[in-house]
């Protein structure tokens, strides 16, 4: 067998950088040049924060193998933390946006720690119920902490600044995906995966399962908080009823549909599931029926999700093509001899 061609790491990074820059420039110029209207841009921004929500939930459902139903809770914490911070506006615009995003993430991360520690003792259905309760508690708290959150009337967002611009959302999505990728391709990521596959075996290999479960919860909540901030920045008024159980279910639906444990799947499914309702608008009342039917058919015919556990890598595809070409050439040479 021939030695396989492997693309060296710096080249892989260069390829990824080019890919990221290409999408950024293409989309940005289209938005600025008017190729994409206001409505489409709004959809793209919405897809952006749903991608972050999905990939962050995927850490717990796909990688750690647990089933939480309170992701909207972390999102709400982040959204309100950022919105309240942005209202006071004591930094220049760009710094203000960045600080708001970080604060949203950190506060949500703290809540992740809070819920992660008791949630450790529970698995499966029990964890689902506990996190479900947590999500509802957060929502009710927000409604009732009137002095801080303006309760059910909703929190007015400052009008002067555009927080969730395409650029901000895009950068957040890219950083989130890179962040999750580098963690998962390290000893820490392997530890999280090993807990999913077999907790007792993981412990007997010296993996501190308590630490990694809490860490997965905190990272997931941190990212959901950032997505919440982007969500808040996209609206004029922040209403607590948006962060209900259905929001958690929607995010979970994206993850399951994309394929548990596949980040690329989450990204694709977030785009599809966010865009589909807009696409089906002409069908009026029937659109929810069609939407639901599609989900049912999807689960019947491809229960592992759109992408299964496949993860996209342009470098890997290039490697395959190059290896294919090399093997073809090699084959010809052999024939000559």
């Amino acid at each position, binding site marked *: 067998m021939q030695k396989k061609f492997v693309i060296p790491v710096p080249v892989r990074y260069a390829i990824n950088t080019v890919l990221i820059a290409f999408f950024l420039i293409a989309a940005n110029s289209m938005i600025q040049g008017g190729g994409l209207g206001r409505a489409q841009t709004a959809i793209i921004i919405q897809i952006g924060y749903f991608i972050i929500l999905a990939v962050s939930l995927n850490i717990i459902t796909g990688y750690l193998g647990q089933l939480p139903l309170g992701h909207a809770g972390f999102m709400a914490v982040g959204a309100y933390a950022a919105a309240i911070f942005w209202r006071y506006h004591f930094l220049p615009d760009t710094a203000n946006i960045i600080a708001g995003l970080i604060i949203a993430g950190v506060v949500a991360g703290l809540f992740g720690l809070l819920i992660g520690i008791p949630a450790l003792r529970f698995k499966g259905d029990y964890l689902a119920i506990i996190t479900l309760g947590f999500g509802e508690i957060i929502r009710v708290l927000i409604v009732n902490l009137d002095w801080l959150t303006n309760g059910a009337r909703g929190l007015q967002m400052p009008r002067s600044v555009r927080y969730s611009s395409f650029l901000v959302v895009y950068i957040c999505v890219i950083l989130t995906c890179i962040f999750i990728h580098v*963690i998962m391709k390290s000893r820490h990521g*392997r530890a999280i*995966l090993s807990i999913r596959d077999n907790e007792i075996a993981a412990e007997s290999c010296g993996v501190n399962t308590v630490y990694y479960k809490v860490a997965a919860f905190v990272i997931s909540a941190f990212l959901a908080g950032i997505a919440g901030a982007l969500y808040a920045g996209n609206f004029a008024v922040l209403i607590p009823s948006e962060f209900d159980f259905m929001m958690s279910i929607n995010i979970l639906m994206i993850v399951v549909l994309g394929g548990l444990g596949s980040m690329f799947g989450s990204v694709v499914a977030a785009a599809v599931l966010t865009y589909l309702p807009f696409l089906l608008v002409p069908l009026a009342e029937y659109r929810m029926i069609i939407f639901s039917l599609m989900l049912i058919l999807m689960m019947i015919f491809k229960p592992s999700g759109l992408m299964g556990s496949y993860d996209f890598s342009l470098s890997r595809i290039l490697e395959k093509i190059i290896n294919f070409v090399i093997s073809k050439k090699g084959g010809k040479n052999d024939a000559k001899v």
Partner: protein
Amino acid sequence: MQKSNVLECVGLGIDFGGLTAVNDFNIEIGTTDIYGLIGPNGAGKTTVFNLLTKVYKPTRGSVFVNGVDTKNLNTVKANKLGLARTFQNIRLFQNMTVQENVMVGLHNEIGYNLASAIFRLPSYWRAEKKAKERVCDLLSIFGMQDMIEHKAGSLPYGSQRRLEIVRALATSPKILLLDEPAAGMNPAETDELMKNIQLINEKFKIAVLLIEHDMKLVMGICEKLAVLNYGMLIAKGTPAEIQSNPAVIEAYLGA
């Protein structure tokens, strides 16, 4: 207590409710012994393993690893002290590759922190590269180095058992606990496994405690044996002594 014992149990016992699963279990294993633990089904052999590795908390007695009392330790810390094990019903990380499985075993040895993983610092690259080399070295004991890309769950049964041993070895143990390593293997595979266990014992200079029903394997490689019946130690000694021990014969044949 002698220094040369890697593992020592004193009066170890556990009750599940009113049922005494293991009682008054005493054993001393030297640093390079190959020790066999045998007994009829349900005698409590696997329970002893779970007690040693702290999956269960003992009701009575204590376990010393290299002279250190493991009383307040959990499974992870017991592993760091040098206890590594395999499982009777294979517990591999099914959805991970062979390489990743062994690398989980190397988890604590790799040892870079979260920041160096996130920012891909030189320590990350160095440790990952070294770990991958170690994985190949370890897998080569069983001639499995060509399988690193395979999913662990898709391996044939015998290879899964061998991979479990490699994963346990990756944690650099002082003593390796093997729970029925030859279960489901054919005689030729069992012979090879026997040689491999002896090789591991000599090459890594570690003790091996093994539970096994295959008497040919047990009598062939164990220097000492302990026999368990109804949670009680009924005999200890060399294979020859055990074979002629009337209590053991009674336990096995019910005479």
